[in-house]
């Protein structure tokens, strides 16, 4: 394990950016989002929840499959060549790190998603533990501890005071760490103790959080019963059908495929879609989900029932972004509770 002081971080950033695109949480106009690091950027590790999740680096909101070109009446298809430059996402919280794994389940199982795979392989994930969970955090409900090292991360970091502890996890992580060795110091015994204390403290804090009693395992996962439940009528009432929960969610992964006709050339692209939208699942004959209740139900059945049925994990990591962003304060915690997912 290594460490670096906060003051030296810019040096670390510029070092990493020499060979990588570096993405870090950057504060701009009072809102923090993962963005490309540039010299002088206002990096902010104090805010736990970036507006949108870092999933956009492995599953961008919009990406092109291929271009097509028409000359006269001839049509030619051109595959998109992948960018070679590797990237580093620095500051991925354990919940978001977990979400990458959940997306892997979908995109990296057969049939493989090449675009996803390419992006996933090109990236180095530098995770960062949390010390001060927020009211809206409920990662614990999905057995994600705020300081846990999630599977698939390359480096795990922890910020305590002005020290950032740095632990290489994967081979890629070791390689990156080696490149940065000039900037990183070794940790002391005292440091390790400090880490231990911090970890146990945060685990206690998590138990005190408002959502700590949420437990999706308490939900009776009888598909038919849940699907037919009257509860959906009631809890979907206030949903206004926007896609903010979906688009800030680190685990949502539905997309739409569209063509753009750009005159002499066009492209086929995919873009995030939301099951909350009225035209989601629109087919030639019409739409099987005609009301917001059905769309609402779909989103949460997917996260809490369908996905777990396939992968034995919930498609939610308790990051709490949707809790903060929903215009009408409806969110998955309320749904879980209504469905009985609560510890007494």
């Amino acid at each position: 394990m290594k460490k670096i002081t906060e003051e030296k971080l810019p040096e670390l950033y510029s070092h990493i950016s020499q060979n990588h695109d570096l993405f870090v949480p950057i504060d701009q106009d009072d809102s923090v989002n993962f963005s490309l690091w540039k010299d002088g950027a206002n990096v902010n590790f104090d805010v736990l929840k970036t507006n949108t999740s870092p999933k956009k680096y492995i599953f961008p909101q919009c990406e092109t499959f291929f271009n097509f070109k028409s000359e006269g009446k001839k049509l030619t298809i051109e595959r998109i060549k992948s960018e070679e430059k590797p990237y580093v996402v620095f500051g991925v919280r354990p919940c978001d790190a977990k979400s990458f794994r959940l997306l892997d389940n979908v995109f990296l199982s057969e049939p493989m998603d090449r675009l996803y795979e390419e992006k996933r392989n090109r990236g180095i994930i530098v995770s960062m533990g949390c010390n001060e969970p927020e009211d809206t955090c409920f990662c614990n409900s999905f057995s994600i501890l705020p300081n846990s090292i999630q599977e698939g991360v390359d480096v795990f970091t922890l910020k305590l005071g002005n020290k950032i502890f740095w632990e290489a996890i994967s081979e890629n992580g070791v390689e990156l760490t080696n490149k940065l060795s000039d900037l990183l110091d070794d940790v002391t015994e005292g440091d390790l103790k400090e880490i231990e204390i911090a970890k146990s403290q945060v685990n206690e804090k998590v138990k005190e959080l408002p959502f700590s009693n949420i437990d999706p395992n308490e939900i009776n996962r009888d598909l038919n019963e849940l699907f037919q439940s009257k509860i959906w009528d009631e809890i979907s009432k206030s949903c206004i059908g926007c896609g903010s929960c979906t688009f800030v969610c680190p685990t949502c992964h539905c997309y739409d495929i569209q063509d753009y006709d750009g005159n002499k050339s066009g492209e086929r692209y995919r873009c995030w879609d939301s099951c909350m939208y009225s035209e989601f699942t629109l087919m030639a004959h019409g739409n099987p989900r005609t009301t917001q209740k059905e769309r609402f139900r779909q989103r949460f059945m997917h996260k809490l029932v369908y996905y777990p049925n396939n992968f034995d994990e919930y498609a939610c990591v308790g990051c709490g972004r949707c809790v903060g962003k929903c215009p009408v304060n409806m969110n998955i915690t309320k749904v879980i509770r209504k469905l009985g997912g609560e510890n007494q």
Partner: protein
Amino acid sequence: MARIGVFVCWCGSNIAATVDVKEVAKEAAKMSGVVLSTDYQYMCSEIGQNLLRNAIKKEKLDRVVVAACSPRMHEVTFRKAAELAGLNPYLVEIANIREHCSWVHKNKDEATEKAIALVRAAVAKVTLNQELIPGEIGIEKRALVIGGGIAGIQTALDIADAGYMVDVIEKTPSIGGKMAQIDKTFPTLDCSACILTPKMVDASMHPNINLHTYSEVEKVSGYVGNFEVTINKKARSVIIEKCSGCGVCIEKCPSRKTKSEFEEGLVNRKAIYTPFPQAVPNVPVIDREACIKFKTGKCGICKKVCTAEAIDFEQEDTKIIQKYGAIVVSTGYDLIDLAKFGEYAYGEDPDVITSLEFERITNAAGPTAGKLLRPSNNEKPEKVVFIQCVGSRDKTCRGKTYCSKICCMYTAKHAMLIKEKYPDIEVHVFYIDVRTPGKNFDEFQRRAVEEYGVNYIKGMVGKVFPDGDKLRVYGVDALSGDTIEIDADLVVLAAATKAKEDAEELGRKLSISTDTNNFFTEAHPKLRPVETHSAGIYLAGACQGPKDIPETVAQASAAASKAIILLSKSKLINNPCVAKVDETICCGCLECTNICPYEAIASTIIEYRDHGKMIKKLVSEVNEALCQGCGGCTVTCRPGAIDLKGFSNKQILAEVDALCF
């Protein structure tokens, strides 16, 4: 996939000299959907059209683009040609490569490039064109004439003579209008009543004419060929069918305090009255505001004396709803109020009168039995001053900016009438300009000056100053620069004409527009002078602008012939490029109904089945017969539910895209 044929016209050298037509045709052939692309010297010629027709048949073209002159020139030609070849005419588009290209650009490369772009846009549009079939609408073979003056009477007689039913609505108790008030007519000085009364009688006797006097238009809905009009027939309190017109009721009526409208307030009339002896119908009406019976409940003398038992105090307003194919508006004009012209002392001194009051005074059937007497003392005046342009050609808020057109002639007439009866009376006319265009008009005015010795003074009157028995008129002769003072006995003001106060309101009911002076607007000032922008509604007489009698009658017959042309058709074909609503998208906000100038969009409730449940939904609905295809509604519609056939959102976007090639 569409099978589009592109035909590039040379227009001799008109296009070919500046645009490389071969190149255009070559490029067009590469465009998506184009299966045939060719050029020809004169596409509009017989041979050119044959080329088009044969190609449609031989190549099984389902869409055609002709790159030629403006669609305003030959769109119809090529669409007809396509139709002859069995293609729906609306599957033809024109690329305007002459007026918009070869004639305005000099550089051949640039012009050719642009011509290709214009063809590309036309191809892009035509790909999205759909077959359009004009609708047909039936026509109600009945006309409505609003206003029963000379214009309305003439229109009604003409239409009735053509064999169609006509209803005439007149607001006052009798038809006749302003012309009935007038004594003599210029330039022939024949008696107005003598020529008008027979026409009034004709109208009342005509089997095809139905008079609704003392009635007003309440509501108009529908569209050309199928108007539905609600007429409010005000309670006359006298049963027309029973009344014999004996006049005893009028004679016995004790109420005598109301000023006579027909006599311009110079004398009073009874509460039960006919406006004038020759009134048509010659049936009295009870003015309920003046009638003692209605005011106090006591009286009822008229009912007692009426042997025909025609008096009915209980009568109520009745509504008549009738369908019409055509409407002619002939509501006439009024004179402006002279209250703002304090310097002329009108209303202050009884001897200052308007020209219309003068008509009554000089009329043999008028209050003075035709004798020229001063209203103040019933004595013969010695000096009479006429002042023209009182409020006409006046840019201020006091008057009207336009020339009232009739004043020069009737003032000359009045002056002449005085001189004829009383050669000893001195007559002075103040004028700014004398305007007498018209057959025998200038000769008429000159006769007043040269033969009758009327003193015309170019200049205006600054003040009319009542001075004891006399009216001191201060004026100026602009030509000599002399200031003039006349001790007059009678001053006659040629007040400006104006549109009827309620013209705008009627215009709204009919959806026809009025100009800044509230005269109804014709569809085109030169070429469509009696039509309005609303199909099936025509204008006659002074409601469209100041007019004299000959012009009014001419326009009335013109409006009648337009109405007859319409009524004589068995069906109307409407423009198929109209708006249509996609009910599945329409959100029922009905904003589109607010902007439609033709009230062609209405709301309706549709029912549809959704998951086994019947759902009612409010949506807009376009009446294709009323829609003229402006497309304003399409922009108002946020979700894009209402679109315009022939100029759809997708078609225009395709054109934009094609031009940005």
